């Protein structure tokens, strides 16, 4: 297993995406080299506390590549320190980025990519067709859509990272464009699409039916045009939509508490979603800082989380519970009191709609393959996602 440690290098971004959960973005909180170095020194000098086999050094913003000079310096220092300390992570490390892709062709970034290509994972977020992408992913200030400025960078990105995927986020306004967006992204040459509804309480009555209609249409498109052979879409997964045993399948969904995020002030968080800039109604869940280290008491509630304790009875009894995700940060933010133990269920109807469309997909696909005598071949060669999701 790899641990994920995230540097929140800036809270600034060129965009002001409408669905962004980072509601407190600003251009003032930029990480200094001193804070970054202190964080690295703390982490690498406490090897016993970080025994995971490998490490994903993750960089987030805002838009992380606005701080490419700092990132380059951090990565150089990390490599040097992991090597000179003979740290076990030197054998298994990655630098990971999710970017809006706007600066992708800049000289500095390309130089950085060339230098670190063997240890890099970069995901450019493209939300689908131009109209879908520009519905949410707009420039700060002007409100102009960012699609054209991103899509021109996709060919170079795919050339450098041919197996990567992208993430598509579905908010309420995006529902009518799901099918065309996934197909558009496939058309750009991206074969791995992770797609999910936002966890916030934004969906209204009837949205689930429209959503189901779209995902079902997407299923038809993928099957009828043969994309199922070598493309992946996270909406369609055979493990989704089954009941979960309350004893044997009681694990928590996300990795909050097993990850670590560091912000510009040098504070540590169990995940970026617990930093103040991503919380609407609750106070930041700070678990320490670069000077004092980690307060393990503040991590205990995370490390004790299981599915059933935090779930309402309707989720425990749910016949289609598997694959129903939650975000621990959103749970905390939406809870009636400051607790991790009250699961938000705003996506309940959307999950059930996804399950129905997912069932349709597999029933249709397997019937087709069986009639064609190709099921066995498909089972042996089915495409798998390369994306690591929290």
């Amino acid at each position: 297993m790899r641990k994920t440690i995230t540097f929140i290098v800036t809270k600034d971004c060129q965009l002001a995406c409408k669905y962004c959960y980072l509601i407190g973005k600003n251009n003032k909180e930029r990480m200094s080299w001193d804070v970054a170095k202190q964080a690295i020194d703390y982490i690498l000098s406490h090897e016993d506390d970080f025994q995971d086999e490998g490490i994903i050094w993750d960089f987030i913003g805002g838009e992380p590549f606005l701080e490419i000079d700092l990132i380059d310096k951090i990565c150089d220092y990390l490599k040097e320190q992991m090597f000179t300390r003979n740290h076990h992570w030197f054998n298994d490390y990655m630098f990971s980025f999710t970017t809006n892709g706007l600066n992708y062709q800049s000289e500095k970034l390309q130089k950085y990519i060339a230098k670190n290509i063997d240890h890099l994972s970069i995901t450019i977020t493209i939300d689908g067709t131009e109209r879908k992408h520009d519905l949410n992913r707009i420039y700060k200030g002007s409100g102009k859509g960012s699609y054209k400025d991103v899509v021109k960078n996709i060919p170079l990105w795919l050339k450098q990272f041919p197996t990567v995927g992208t993430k598509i986020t579905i908010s309420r306004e995006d529902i009518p464009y799901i099918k065309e967006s996934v197909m558009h992204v496939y058309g750009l040459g991206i074969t791995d699409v992770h797609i999910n509804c936002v966890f916030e309480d934004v969906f209204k009555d009837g949205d689930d039916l429209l959503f189901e209609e779209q995902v079902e249409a997407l299923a038809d498109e993928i099957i009828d045009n043969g994309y199922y052979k070598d493309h992946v879409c996270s909406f369609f997964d055979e493990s989704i939509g089954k009941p979960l045993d309350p004893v044997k399948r009681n694990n928590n969904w996300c990795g909050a508490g097993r990850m670590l995020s560091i912000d510009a002030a040098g504070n540590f968080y169990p995940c970026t979603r617990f930093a103040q800039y991503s919380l609407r109604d609750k106070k930041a869940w700070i678990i320490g800082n670069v000077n004092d280290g980690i307060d393990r008491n503040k991590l205990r509630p995370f490390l004790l989380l299981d599915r059933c304790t935090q779930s309402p009875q309707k989720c425990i009894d749910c016949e289609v519970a598997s694959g129903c995700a939650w975000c621990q940060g959103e749970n905390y933010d939406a809870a009636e009191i400051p607790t991790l133990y009250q699961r938000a269920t705003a996506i309940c109807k959307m999950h059930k709609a996804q399950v129905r469309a997912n069932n349709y997909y597999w029933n249709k696909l397997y019937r087709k393959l069986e009639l064609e005598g190709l099921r066995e071949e498909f089972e042996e060669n089915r495409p798998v996602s390369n994306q690591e999701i929290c």
Partner: protein
Amino acid sequence: MLQYLIILLDDTSTSYCHYSPSQSQHQLIALADLKAGIRFAMKENLMIQYVYPACDLPQEYKETIETIDHSKIIPSNSPMVEEADVVVFNNWKDAVGFSFDESATYVLRICKEDLFAQKEVIGTFISKVARLNIVLIDVETFTENDFSRYKSVLDSFGKETEKLYKAGMSPQLNVITDRIALSQMNNCNAGSNNITLAPDGRFYICPAFYYSAEDKETFCVGDLQSGLAIKAAKLYKLAYAPLCRICDAYQCKRCVWINRKMTFDITTPSHEQCVLAHLERNTSRRVLESVRKEKEFYPEQDIKEIDYLDPFDVRIDWHKI
């Protein structure tokens, strides 16, 4: 199920627990609110525990208090201390020379340094009272070294209680004898078993939250006009405390206020709370074993030998399954 209503009669009402009141100015609960609180308790079948300040009360309050069955928690320096069901010492020095009532319960609120330094003095109180509750007021400051010192204090108290048991007496010292007698969790249960009415006429999960500048509003759970509305009510129950529900340190207070303070989540205890409770549990076990060598003693009780002090260390780690 709610069973108790704690009524703080004044902003300076004594603490009888881990928290320290933040108010120094007297502010009595309004007489109308006191009466409304009593009516509320009657309708909800709640037993009232009045918590007194160090000063005297007006006569009309005294008369109102007596209109319902109740118990009185009174600081040792109050002029009304003789009426107390539970006497609170906020300083160990106040207990020295105090005229103990052998049938009364006493709470000694004490910091670790005083406890470590005065264990001999405090040990002498055990035989003089019906029950002594020792309440640490600085749990969050305990270090590994302090745990060792606390163990030494417990050993000392253990010898005293052992001696009394062997002499045919029934001492009650919360940190040792409770676990010997208990067969299931017996925690504070603020928010599920009891609720607090504060001098501002509002309900709180417990007095500590009323005095917490940061958490007062979050853990205010209604008022006398609109009634009780406990948000996320089930989370105050043992079944939703992921560590405590598998624990057998039955005497632990399972203080949701310290949980909130130290781990940010009311459901989860800190390392310090768990270790202290387990040191107590283990001392109880030793006393039980020792007394049994001389006579039949709680024959049904079985406190198992364990090799951890913090159940967090032996939790189910779903991540590794």
